[in-house]
């Protein structure tokens, strides 16, 4: 486990080396997880090992307020998460553009990072995710506000324990620490959202993956229309948790995607 100090906060980062490759500068894939009970573990145990085995450097980190990273009382606007990502890449000596892979809120952070630092991004993969817009902010405000309110009551823990097992209860408690004891639930929806021009300024390739049963699936069409180089894929039979429920499907989309957008560099020197 690596703990680094970046952007004034302690961040938990996991690195996996590029294996089975002789490429001098293998591509770097950066995984960014979602909100609440999520952590880098959802990528660490699904895509990280296969991506590393396919000859790519892997970086996964816990967002502030999540997993083993620091949990400041305030400072949870998207710009803070973008600043953390930027500082983490510098601290880990990452050179050249990276492939950002974000799940849910992690994809929103990835997109905002590409708006702020287009020269550092080779491509973006957004899983069940959308860019930060006014509509996104209103939706997140409602979701986070309700979650924080619900979790604020001790009774909620008893109810969760009874109905969903102790494990979920402990996860819910961990999330409530951040949601109730920090300004996360109000900061995230108060983030500066992107203008239409900013969204359209993202010209790197974007792969948008959705579950067919998710209410976000309608974003596929929207993103393909608004972005210059966006390809969307709908995975049948899944809702929002497509990453953890169908990791092999997501992996089979991700590996050729990175290879395609590395101009074939991935395959150089990779044993057959």
């Amino acid at each position, binding site marked *: *486990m690596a703990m680094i100090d970046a952007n004034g906060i302690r961040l938990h980062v*996991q690195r*996996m080396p590029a294996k089975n490759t002789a490429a001098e500068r293998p591509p770097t894939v950066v995984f960014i997880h979602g909100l609440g009970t999520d*952590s*880098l*573990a*959802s990528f*660490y*145990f*699904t*895509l*990280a*090992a*296969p991506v590393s*085995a396919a000859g790519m450097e892997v970086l996964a980190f*816990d967002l502030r307020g999540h*997993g*083993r990273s620091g949990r400041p009382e305030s400072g949870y606007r998207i710009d803070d998460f973008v600043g953390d990502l930027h500082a983490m890449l510098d601290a880990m000596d990452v050179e050249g553009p990276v492939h950002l892979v974000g799940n849910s809120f992690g994809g929103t952070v990835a997109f905002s990072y590409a708006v702020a630092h287009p020269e550092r991004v080779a491509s973006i993969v957004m899983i069940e995710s959308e860019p930060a817009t006014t509509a996104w902010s209103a939706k997140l405000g409602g979701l986070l506000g309700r979650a924080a309110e619900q979790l604020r009551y001790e009774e909620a823990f008893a109810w969760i324990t009874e109905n969903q*097992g*102790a*494990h979920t209860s*402990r*996860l819910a408690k*961990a999330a409530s620490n951040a949601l109730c004891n920090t300004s996360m639930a109000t900061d995230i929806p108060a983030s500066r959202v992107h203008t239409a021009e900013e969204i359209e300024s993202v010209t790197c390739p974007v792969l948008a993956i959705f579950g067919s049963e998710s209410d976000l699936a309608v974003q596929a069409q929207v993103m393909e229309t608004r972005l210059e180089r966006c390809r969307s894929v709908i995975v049948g039979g899944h809702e929002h948790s497509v990453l*953890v*429920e169908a*990791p092999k499907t997501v992996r089979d989309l991700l590996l050729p995607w990175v290879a395609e957008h590395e101009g074939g560099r991935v395959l150089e020197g990779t044993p057959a």
Partner: protein
Amino acid sequence: MTTTPDLSAPEAVLADISEMLREVLGEYGLDDAVIEMDTKFHEDLELESIDLVALSGQLEQHYDGRVNFAEFIADLELDEIIELTVGRLVDYVVSCLTSVGGR
């Protein structure tokens, strides 16, 4: 004549893993948990997935990079992960330690 203990024997690996798990569980004040081959990570130990990342780092360090827990989990189906027992991890570690190139 002395005999060298077989560090890749299932009993030895179970003891190693139990030690690592107690360290992880210690953060929750649960370092006295009973850990056996049929103990389930999810149901019995209630480990969060981020705790398993810590366990993964310990396994990698303890066995000099010969055990890749992330790779093992990535090959499993979701229901197998939920039902994962300590014994299944022990078997995997033993197979890593005794495979060609193992010491």
